[in-house]
């Protein structure tokens, strides 16, 4: 199995789930130039992230190239241990990935 681009930690404490995610992605703005060739490096960034808990969308975000390379995300939402959390991303050139994880206890 190919290694996922997403690392995720989901822990519940007092009825609240904390989700921390790291996504491996170049997040090119399209405004940078290659230092050697001087050519524009085409834009390549994640433009949409969706988090679902037990199939219900709890968070979604549109991103631009201003989000750093290998983006980090921390959000919190109501839930309990054992909930199924899914994080999915899409980028501007049509790539995507997702990961699913069962919430653990903090």
């Amino acid at each position, binding site marked *: 199995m190919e290694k996922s681009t997403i690392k995720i930690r989901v822990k519940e404490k007092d009825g609240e789930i904390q989700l921390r995610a790291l996504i491996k992605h170049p*997040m090119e703005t399209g405004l940078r130039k290659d230092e050697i060739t001087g050519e524009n490096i085409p834009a390549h960034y994640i433009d*949409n992230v969706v988090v679902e808990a037990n199939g219900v969308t*709890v*968070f979604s975000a549109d991103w631009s*190239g*201003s*989000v*750093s*390379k290998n983006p980090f995300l921390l959000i919190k939402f109501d839930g309990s241990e054992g909930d199924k959390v899914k994080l999915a991303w899409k980028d501007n050139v049509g790539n995507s990935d997702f990961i699913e994880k069962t919430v653990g206890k903090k």
Partner: protein
Amino acid sequence: MERRSFLRGCVVVGATGAACSTGLLASGAAIANGSDPFEATSLDAVLKALGADDAQTSNQIKITAPKVAENGASVPVAISSTIQGTTEIMTIVSTNPKPLAARNRFGKGAAPSVSSRLKMGKTTEVIAVVRAGDMHYTAKTEVKVTVGGCGG
């Protein structure tokens, strides 16, 4: 661009299903007036495209960011809102070529707070715009950048 036309399609058709839930959570305001806030190149244009040019300054929005960032390529920024009914938090890096960095939408049960890392080309104001109901609120903080994050 494909994503936005997809969202627009969702709003028009009003389709349900997991794939369209993003579109259903969207406010629709920016989509309705036709200009894409992510493509806007000035702070004023971003606010206008978001329909937030009348946003009120609020002390119920907390922005956590370093005063001085040594590496503009990755600046940790956390934004939270205690405004009742917060559904969206927009993050704007005012001096970046395309200032709107992120548009975060919170569903039911989600805490209106988000932490991530942003690029900052030079010293800038980080502006948060919060949407609650039909109202927009805003807060800002300054980050001094010693080494820019946009490379070449």
